């Protein structure tokens, strides 16, 4: 009963939140809309990663490379379509689908290997994978455009939007739509029977196998689905930046995705949302604080970026040690406390 209730609440929260966010795009400045779109793009990848790591127990440091795969597939398809002078929704949707397909295939390949690896081994392989990415793009630079990457012809904002909001607003819509689709699909997957199987595999592979779960299959599917989500995230990034380059998807991005999932609360989609927001907002806040300090340009340049990275790292360590359920865990705890206090007041114990 409570399950259905809470499920209905989440749907309501989701729909209301979605409407609110889209409404927000009408009032935000273009730059804020761009940030919103970035949050949504990260959310796609972080949601996929949090499912893989938190629910299925596979730690991937390769999700930046999977995003890159999505971005490049998007770029190839979009540029190909543009050469044929195809425009309109096709120029937006087909490249995104291509990105999903590309990332899914690559994810399947890695996932097949990953299914046989454990903990740190998988982390190491996927780390090597993300480190090898620039090598591949510069080796086949006629295809991938080398370190510079590729410029992408993207679908412009529709005519009827002209006047009302900037390109950024359109970008935010596309990004939010993609994130919404990813989150809804992942949520259903995590709540399905397959979600239970993923958790069983995470908790104890031997026990899961004895219970009749196909462990390898579960791990491969989890990795593939998670890769597809990362691919969408990469596609959205490519669409927003109109480019795909290896530098945009380096090890740091992988670490940031993991960090977002961990700090937000690993294994929960709400956590992925908190983490993605933090990923975009925190550097911005730190940037405006340091700008306010009127530091020398050299010091400012050193602090720029590094301060946020260091803070992220420190918070990630702290979360692992003292608050393993992350922000979402704290939110939930606070919620419980408020609720239990409320019920105490409404029905005071005789004692």
């Amino acid at each position: 009963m409570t399950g259905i209730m809470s499920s209905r609440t989440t749907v309501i929260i989701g729909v209301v939140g979605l409407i609110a966010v889209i409404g927000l795009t009408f009032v935000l400045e273009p730059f804020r809309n761009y940030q919103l779109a970035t949050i949504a793009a990260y959310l796609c990848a972080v949601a996929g990663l949090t499912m893989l790591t938190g629910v299925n127990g596979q730690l991937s440091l390769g999700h930046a490379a999977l995003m890159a795969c999505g971005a490049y597939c998007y770029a190839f398809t979009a540029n190909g379509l543009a050469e044929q002078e195809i425009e309109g929704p096709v120029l937006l949707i087909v490249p995104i689908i291509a990105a999903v397909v590309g990332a899914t295939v690559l994810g399947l390949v890695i996932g097949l290997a990953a299914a046989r690896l454990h903990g740190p081994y998988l982390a190491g392989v996927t780390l090597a994978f993300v480190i090898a990415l620039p090598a591949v793009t510069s080796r086949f630079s006629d295809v991938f455009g080398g370190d510079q990457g590729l410029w992408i012809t993207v679908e412009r904002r529709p005519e009827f939007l002209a006047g009302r909001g900037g390109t950024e607003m359109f970008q935010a819509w596309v990004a939010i739509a993609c994130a919404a689709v990813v989150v809804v699909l992942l949520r259903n997957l995590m709540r399905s029977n397959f979600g239970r199987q993923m958790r069983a595999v995470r908790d104890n592979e031997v026990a899961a196998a004895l219970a009749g779960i196909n462990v390898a299959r579960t791990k491969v599917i989890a990795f593939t689905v998670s890769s597809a989500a990362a691919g969408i995230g990469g596609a959205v990034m490519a669409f927003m930046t109109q480019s795909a380059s290896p530098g945009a998807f380096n090890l740091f991005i992988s670490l940031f995705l993991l960090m977002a999932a961990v700090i937000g609360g690993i294994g929960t989609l709400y956590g992925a949302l908190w983490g993605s927001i933090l990923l975009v907002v925190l550097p911005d806040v730190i940037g405006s604080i340091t700008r306010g300090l009127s530091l020398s340009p050299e010091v400012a340049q050193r602090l720029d970026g590094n301060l946020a990275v260091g803070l992220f790292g420190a918070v990630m360590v702290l979360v692992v040690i003292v608050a393993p359920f992350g922000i979402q865990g704290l939110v939930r705890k606070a919620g419980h406390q408020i609720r239990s206090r409320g019920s105490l007041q409404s029905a005071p114990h005789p004692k």
Partner: protein
Amino acid sequence: MELERFIFLTVDGLARGAVYAAFALSLVLIWRAARIVNFSQGAIAMAATYIAFVVTSMTGNYWLGLVAALLGGAAIGLIVERGVMRFVSPVNPLNSVIAALGVLLVIQAVVGMLFGNGYYPMAVPFSQEPLPWLAGLSISAYDLFVFVCVAFVVLGLAVLFGKTNVGLRMRAAAFSPELARLLGVRSTRMITLGWMLASAISGLAALLVIPTELGLNPHATDLVFVYAFTIAVVGGLDSAPGAVIGGLVVGVLLSWVSGYLGATLSPVAVLVLLLAVLLIKPGGIFSVTKERTA
């Protein structure tokens, strides 16, 4: 001509491989001491190299810098273990990986804030030109220096673990911390010691390899770490001899790949090698014990 190039690549690969082997040894040490794959090892080594760089720049003396790298590495290892890793619950092995990655971010950010993200060229104490009296082998004095340093590390570790009481205590604490404690071994202290030793060695390795590459930078050891991880896995995370042999083999392989197929391809070659070993012989080529899943 062909042969000359082959010899050059092989010797160069051995020299690099020796350094990677030392780095891989540091991973093996921590794995054996604490059952943790230390993903922050590269960052620790990088920071130690910055310490060496500062000391050498201030004193003009390379050797003081080398000592500083060793001591600095040990100190950072101490801080990381006592300050962070000790408090990470071992219940989920992913926790220690995530915590180590957090440490990596912190170290890279701190170094970036202190020194900026630019490249500093680093001086070496010996010439990198091939020695005339070893004509045809194209070994430089610096290569020899590297071999000597790594040999020193390997022998030192062999003596430490094979002959000394501290080494025996460290091994006991690594294999069976609770039992060792009952026998009077201060196991937690031994684990800390393992971290310090490993971090000092990785600092030395980074100090040896960074001058031969693009120079000192907060990310100077990212790729080296991946190589070392691969070597440690190839050799079997539990096996010190495996790390040494694996280091030399992988070093030569990488040198051939980058010499004959293109310099940019070595990370790809490493990825392929890593996957091949993990899928075909997950316990590592040289390890005798069963694969550990943690």
